[in-house]
């Protein structure tokens, strides 16, 4: 009898413990994103949310190399890991069509959240499907674009400036065109500065995920590359492989061949950062998301580094990065997740987000007269976001991306065939993909 009472008491304690754990788990949200500097900023920012609402935040951050694999798998298998997901802009089509994301229109209406408060380019790219429609599947969370960083201190050296002017007939300054970028890269390639050999430029050449596609499009877009002759018609022949596109691809290959450090054949964000911070290169391409860290870096930060927007050639264009924050439809805590979205959309939260290193897309932040001076790269960020172009956002974007990764890496890094052949093969791959998807 006594033993029975002891057992009952132990069971009651265990049940109480389990119940309190379950209750605690109910007031907890998991936010999934990539593991990078802005994610760290978001964990700091989210403490305010927890203080205001009592809802604890858990985070699931995955390195960029595995980010798409990990979370697309999670969504496709209707996993319940993520309540909130800051997914890539290219996922919006597939996630909307396949029901992975909650449509937010009713919620926005109920809570008085207006998409007019956000930069139109970011609403278009991060939130809407079909593109440009009024169907919203994400709140713009992290504005981003591909920009450039350069060694301002090297550019300021009188002997280098004199030599550059003598050779090219203009001042050594951030380039205004893609061809000027190539000139500067060639100028620094192999040059000995402070006793060490330096190289021109660190660009994206990564094969595994999306790196080289992002890099190549930063050259293709300014040269006039288009995905379709007529938007929405998938008439790619003559657009993707146009003479302008061929020139753009040839330019990127020439830049890779002439002006990158040895061993830079599979480089993405971190490799470019390493090459720049270790003093190997005069310029690097990278996402604006990294620029706060570079500006504060003890070795290359402060007055040593400057920033410039992706140079034009025929047109002004920058590669769109960035993400929106979505509520995962398989989550059991959609109500709590929507509370987070409501909180995140507040102008004061967005201002703090920018101050912590996140790239707000809210007009209250970006239209502030003091914004361009708030950081050394802020004005360039505004300029970039005014002319961004994104990759396909179709539901089968992953297939389209992998095809481009293969074709451009084969040409740019492995030197296989010509630029025209690479783009012709890419058109064939994409046509096959769209036929499979029933779009052609």
């Amino acid at each position, binding site marked *: 009898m006594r033993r029975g009472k002891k057992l009952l008491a132990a069971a009651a304690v265990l049940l109480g413990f389990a119940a309190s754990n379950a209750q605690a788990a109910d007031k907890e949200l998991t936010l999934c994103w990539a593991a990078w500097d802005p994610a760290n900023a978001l964990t700091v920012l989210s403490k305010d949310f927890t203080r205001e609402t009592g809802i604890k935040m858990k985070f699931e951050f995955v390195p960029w190399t595995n980010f*798409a*694999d990990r979370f*697309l*798998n999670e969504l*496709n298998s209707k996993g319940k890991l993520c309540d909130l997901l800051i997914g890539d802009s290219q996922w919006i089509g*597939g996630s909307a*069509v*396949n*029901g992975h994301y909650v449509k937010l229109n009713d919620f926005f209406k109920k809570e008085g959240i207006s998409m007019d408060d956000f930069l139109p380019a970011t609403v278009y790219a991060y939130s809407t499907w079909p593109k440009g429609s009024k169907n919203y599947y994400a709140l713009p969370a992290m504005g981003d674009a591909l920009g450039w960083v350069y060694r301002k201190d090297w550019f300021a050296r009188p002997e280098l400036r004199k030599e550059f002017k003598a050779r090219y007939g203009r001042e050594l300054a951030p380039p205004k065109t893609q061809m000027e970028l190539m000139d500067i890269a060639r100028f620094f390639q192999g040059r000995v500065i402070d006793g060490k050999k330096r190289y021109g430029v660190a660009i994206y050449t*990564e*094969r*595994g995920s999306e790196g080289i596609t992002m890099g190549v499009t930063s050259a293709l877009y300014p040269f006039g590359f288009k995905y379709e002759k007529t938007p929405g018609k998938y008439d790619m022949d003559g657009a993707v492989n146009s003479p302008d596109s061929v020139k753009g691809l040839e330019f990127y290959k020439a830049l890779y061949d002439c002006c990158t*450090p*040895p*061993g*830079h*054949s*599979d480089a993405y964000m971190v490799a470019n950062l390493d090459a720049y911070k270790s003093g190997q290169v005069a310029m690097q391409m990278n996402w604006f998301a990294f620029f706060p860290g570079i500006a504060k870096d003890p070795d290359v930060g402060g007055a040593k580094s400057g920033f410039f927007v992706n140079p034009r050639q025929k047109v002004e264009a920058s590669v769109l990065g960035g993400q929106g924050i979505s509520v995962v439809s398989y989550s059991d805590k959609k109500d709590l997740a929507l509370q987070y979205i409501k909180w995140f959309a507040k102008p004061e939260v967005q201002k703090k987000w920018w101050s912590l290193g996140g790239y707000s897309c809210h007009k209250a932040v970006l239209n502030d007269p003091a914004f361009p001076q708030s950081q050394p790269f802020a004005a360039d960020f505004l300029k970039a976001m005014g002319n961004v172009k994104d990759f396909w956002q179709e*539901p*089968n974007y*992953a*297939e389209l991306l*992998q*095809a481009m990764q*293969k074709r451009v*890496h*084969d*040409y740019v*890094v*492995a*030197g*296989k065939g010509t630029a025209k052949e690479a783009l012709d093969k890419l058109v064939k791959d994409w046509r096959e993909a769209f036929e*499979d998807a029933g779009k052609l």
Partner: protein
Amino acid sequence: MTARDRTSLAQKAARATPEPVARRIRGLSDRALAWLFISPTIILLLAINIFPLIWTIYLSFTNYHANRPNMNVRWIGLRNYQRILGSEDIWGYLQVTAHFVFWTMVLQLLLGFGLALLINRNFRGSSFWTTVILIPMMLSPAVVGTFWTYLYQPQTGIFSYIVNAFYDFGPLDMIGSVKLAPWAIVIVDTWMWTPYILLLSLAGLRSIPDYLYEAAEIDRANAWQKFWHITFPRVLPFLMLAVLFRGIENFKMFDMVAELTSGGPGSTTELVSITLKRAAFESWKTGYASAFAVILFVTVFGLGNIYVKALNRVKR
């Protein structure tokens, strides 16, 4: 344990068995009991091996995409197989894989067997050196691929430094060069798995009875004759077994190469397993990837069967 102990143990077990269970077991034959014991394993095998294989074969005839659950899945017959077998790129990847498998086998056999011959002579410190040589094999392939990217760095990597100590080639871009990258992955795999061949060869060498060599001594056979007529034929089945295991492993090699080169530069080190992973889990062309997996399975199974027949002939 005596017969008496076994009987008392059996009696204890019988007393401990609940009556409903005991009643059921009493009626079973030995054969039925045997099936009862192995059925969990069979169910597991069916669930993990057989069912996925049959399901993959079915999917290979459809247009299924795992990332499009709302899509109409249609039977498309042999279209996936036609696309794969008609693709220039796929034949390219098969060529890359064949190059990798062939050269890793040749180098690992030569080095592994050679090292085994050396280590088989008992010298001072042979156990220590055997252990040191085995270390690469104990590492994770993904870790090996990752740290070799640093060793292969043209500016700071030790590989380029060591090679240039012999001859000034300048900074060697092993991973970024179209000509060198296929050899870069061969070198890493050889470094990692030669110890495996060494172990199997050593087992073969140590199984050769001494009296054979003594008899050869009496017949005044020289070192080469002893090797060719005694050592090599006796070790050959072990070497062939090693080739079979390593060949199968390298045909499906993924992690080390994915970490080292991601299949680049371009597609110069893109092994078929990397292509398969990309098709299945990056492009989400599940039906297409299933067809490719079936083709690879049939290839390995077919080649493996032919090889095992040859191995059995050698053993006889």
